[in-house]
Structure formats: C-alpha cells, structure tokens
C-alpha cells in the first residue's frame, strides 16, 4: 500500500479524528448554506419577542433586540471560519517565508529574524493579540491581520528547524552546483519538503485562531455588533445571564463544538504523522 494510503487508513481508524472531521464538515456546510438554513435574517428585529426564550418561533430564543439567536449563531460561523482560515493562511505564508529565509541564508539575517521571533513568542498570544488589535482597530479584516500576525512567529519557528536540516542535503548541493537561483532552491526544493508538517500545524492552529477571534470579539476588540460573532454575542448576553441565559449559552456551545472539532482533527493528523506522539 502506498504511503498516502497507509496514512489515510490510520487517520480513518482514529475515531476522534473521524468524528472531528464529520462535525467540521457539517459546520462548513452550515456556513455555506447560512442564507438557506437560517430561519430569519440575522439583523431582523422582532420587538414583540424581545428576550424570548427558546420556542417554536425562535428555536434558540431571541436577543434583547428580538433578533433570532439561531440565525445569528449560524451566520457567525461564516465570520469565525473566514477569520480562522485567512489568519492562519497569513501566518503560514509570512511565517514560513521568515523561517525558511532565516534558515537558508544564515548569518546576520538568521540572527535578526529568529531573535525577533523569540522575543515575540515571549508574549502570551492573547496579550499580543490585544495589543495588535488595539493598534489596528476593530473589524473583520483587521482581525484577520491581527491573528495572522500573532501566528507568524509560530510558523517561522516551525519552518526554521527543518530548513536547517534540509539545506545541507545532497540534492540541494547538487542544485546549487548546477547554478539554481536562491528563489528556485527555496521554492522548488526546500518548501515542498517542509510543507506537510506546516499544513498539519495549520489545521491544529485553525481551532486556536477561531478561539482567538471569539476572545477578541468578546473583549470588544474584534468584530463589532451588530455583525454577529460568537464572541460579541456571548459578551452582550452577559447583561441578561439570569433572565435570558440562552443569549450566551448557545454561541458558547457553538464555539466549543467548532474548536473541539478542529482540535480533534489536529490530534488525529498528529497521530498519523508521528505515531510516537499518539495519545
């Protein structure tokens, strides 16, 4: 059996990863079909039903403006997944470039890039996120850039180690001898070798990115109301915890299920790639 086939079989046998994948696929489908499956417009106000409990009319209840909680939870998936996906892509792209260039060039370039990365990693991610969000301002695009910046040093560190190991192997020396340019050496020979590991990390950090989005929106530094995100829905629901707990409860559960599904996939992928780490 081919290597890919063996990896796929190991992944399929891992029940946690399989369940995580199914749930994640369902969530992605729900995001794509949001206009079709959400019962109401997420901004539509039903003043007669303000703070209404879960009922046949509003399956997960309604908020203080009478907006349907279920519809807002479903529409939030789009924002969370978009922010998660694009921020991880930004971190992956810039971080990988930094790590590969540092490992490949060596010397002063390596020292400057990697020491900067080390210092940036000194700060807890959320605290860096809060600072960067405060500088860039709120909004979906700024949030994507903020979380992308936070993940950049992590990807840089991850790409740096393997680059150091690969840059002295025979085929790279051979490419160098026949006069390949630096760009060709990196793009054609180096990157394809380390990209698999980076993609696994990207899946693992997708959950972390969604969690970060929720946290920053909760703190009022992410996507601002009235646009629905789980973080800002939980925050605005806190004013009515005793009389309308569903306002915070359901967006919180949605966050938990989404992040959990991506973490389950990440765990499974890690098991497939490195059986020694199987836990």
């Amino acid at each position, binding site marked *: 059996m081919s290597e890919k086939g063996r990896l796929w079989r190991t992944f399929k046998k891992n029940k*946690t990863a399989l369940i995580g994948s199914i749930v994640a696929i369902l969530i992605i489908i729900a995001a794509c079909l949001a206009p079709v499956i959400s019962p109401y417009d997420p901004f539509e106000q039903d003043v007669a039903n303000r703070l209404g409990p879960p009922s046949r009319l509003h399956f997960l209840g309604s908020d203080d403006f009478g907006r349907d909680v279920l519809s807002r939870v479903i529409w939030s998936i789009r924002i969370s997944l978009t922010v998660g996906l694009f921020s991880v892509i930004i971190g992956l792209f810039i971080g990988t470039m930094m790590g590969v260039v540092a490992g490949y060039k060596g010397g002063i370039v390596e020292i400057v890039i990697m*020491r900067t990365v080390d210092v940036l990693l*000194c700060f807890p991610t959320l605290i860096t996120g809060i*600072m960067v969000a405060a*500088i860039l301002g709120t909004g979906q695009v700024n949030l994507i850039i903020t979380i992308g910046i936070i993940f950049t040093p992590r990807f840089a560190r991850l790409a740096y180690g393997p680059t150091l190991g690969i840059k002295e192997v025979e085929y790279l020396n051979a490419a160098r001898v026949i006069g390949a340019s630096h760009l060709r050496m990196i793009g054609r020979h180096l990157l394809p070798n380390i990209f698999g590991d980076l993609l696994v990390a990207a899946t693992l950090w997708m959950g972390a990115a969604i969690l970060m989005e929720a946290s920053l929106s*909760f703190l009022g530094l992410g996507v601002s109301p009235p646009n629905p995100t789980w973080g800002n829905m939980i925050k605005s629901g806190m004013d009515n915890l005793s009389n309308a707990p569903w306002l915070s409860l359901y967006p919180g559960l949605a966050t*938990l299920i989404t*992040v959990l599904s991506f973490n389950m996939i990440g765990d499974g992928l890690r098991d497939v790639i490195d059986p020694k780490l199987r836990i």
Partner: protein
Amino acid sequence: MRIQYIIRRILISVPILLAVYTIVFFLVRSMPGGPAVAVLGDYASKEAVEALEAQMGLDLPLWVQYVRFLWGLLRWDLGRSLINGFPVAPQIAEVLPYTLELTISAIIFGVIFGIPLGIFTALRRNSLLDYLARTFSLGGISMPEFFIGILLIMIFSIKLDLFPVMGGGNLYDLHDNLSHLFLPALTLGLMMTGYVTRTTRSSVLNVLRDDYVRTARAKGLRERVVIYGHALGNALIPVVSFIGVYAILLIAGSVLVEVVFSRPGLGKMMIGAIKQRDYMTLQSVMVVYGSMVVVINLLTDLSYGLIDPRIRCK
C-alpha cells in the same frame, strides 16, 4: 545544580527583558492618536496637543524617550496614568496580587488534578475512563475561558447562589477573598487540568515504552515499583517544563476571566487602558506581563535543572 548554571541562566534573561521592553515601547508608540490626543480628545487644537506633548516629554527625540523609559523602569517609575493622573506603579502593585493569586491557584488546581488524571489514564489506556478523561481534557482546552466562567456563574452564582458573581473581594479578609477567588480559579484551573492531563498522559506513555522500563519488568520487579520507582520520575520531567508554558497561557486566560468576573487585576486594567486610550498604563501593564513571562521561563529552566540530573551535572 551548579551556581554558574543559575547565574548564566539569569544573565541570559537580561537581554531578553530588554528586548521585550523595547518591543512594548515601540508598540505603544504606534498606537493610533497618541497620548496627548487621548487626554485632550479628538477635537483638541493642534497647539494644545503640542503643548501637552511638550509637557509629557513626547516632543523629545524617540531615543531620548526610550532611554527615559528604561531609566524609569530601573527605578520602578512607570509614569502617571493619562486618565486619573496618579502614578501607575502603585496602581499595578494594588491589582497584581489579584492576578497572581488567580494564576497560582489555577496552576495548583491543574497540577493536583491533572497529573494524577494523566498518570491514571496512561496506565489504563483505552479504557472507558481513559476516553472520558481524554474527552474532558480536549474539551478543557477547546472551551473559551470566558464561556467556562459564564457557565460557572450560571450554576454556582445564579442557580445555587453559593459564590459572588463579581469582584475580587478584600485581600485581607480570607473568607471574602476565597469566596471571590473560587469560581475564577476554577475556570482557569479546569483549562489547566486539561493541558496537564494531556501532557502527563503522553509523557507517561512515552516513558513506558523505554528500554529501561522493559528491563525493569524483565528482571521481575513488581509493576508498582516499575511505575512509581522507575518510570514516573522521568515521565514528570517534561511535564514540569510544560507547566511553565501553560502558566504563560494562564496569564493570557486571566485577562478574559478578570473581565468575565469583573475582577480587579492586570488584565482588566489593560482592557480598561486600551478602551480609555491610557497609553502610559497600557505600557506599564505590558511591561509587567512581559517580565512575568520572562521570570516564568527562567524559573521553569531552573526547576528543570533541579529535577533532571543530566542537566544538573552539565
């Protein structure tokens, strides 16, 4: 442990601290608006802004401001709040114990429950309890801290009326302090338990595959002796270093928990400073956060050397 190792490790922390402070200084300088505009408002005249900037020393060259900033740090002079005009250092000293007690109690909670749970699940791999504990720990690290906090408030404060919903309590009144601390510490503690359980379980499983454990079993030692006498000590070495990493995560988590429980602390102070554009306070809080992380990393490395004989002998 050799004294040179400790001194060398402490000396390494100095340039790291300097780099952290430098990044904080420049990050805060790149905030939109600037401190003078923050104080006077967006519609203040240019002259008024310039006059206040001169008064605050913000018209000086950047490197002079930077040297002043570092010199102030050396003397524990963190400047004055732009909002209330009081020195920032005493305000930080007032709230820091709340953040520290929250973080430390969460670490203790995580270690007390996480390590035994991790060992137990590793020794009973693939049992029902193992699956339950793994699901719990994965849930613990996937759930936003603020959502755990809200759930605990709903159950213990609103439904059962056992603990206060908000505030940090009086630090000098043990009962009041503990009753305010319990739910926030439980919130972060559950997350910590999730991390510690996973690390311990994976570490114990790795060690149980090692040759010396096989040798110990082959020479007929009882399982209890193999596990507690041989395997466990080595399995816990990586756990200690990871506890340092998780402690840093907890510091970040404490920001959210302090906001949820309206609890005084560095995190709440930081969010308040950002909302009010109080750059002086923000800069100082970031300096304290950065220093805490560097100190945690230092303590982790030193404790690593203390418990691992291989590092101790180097």
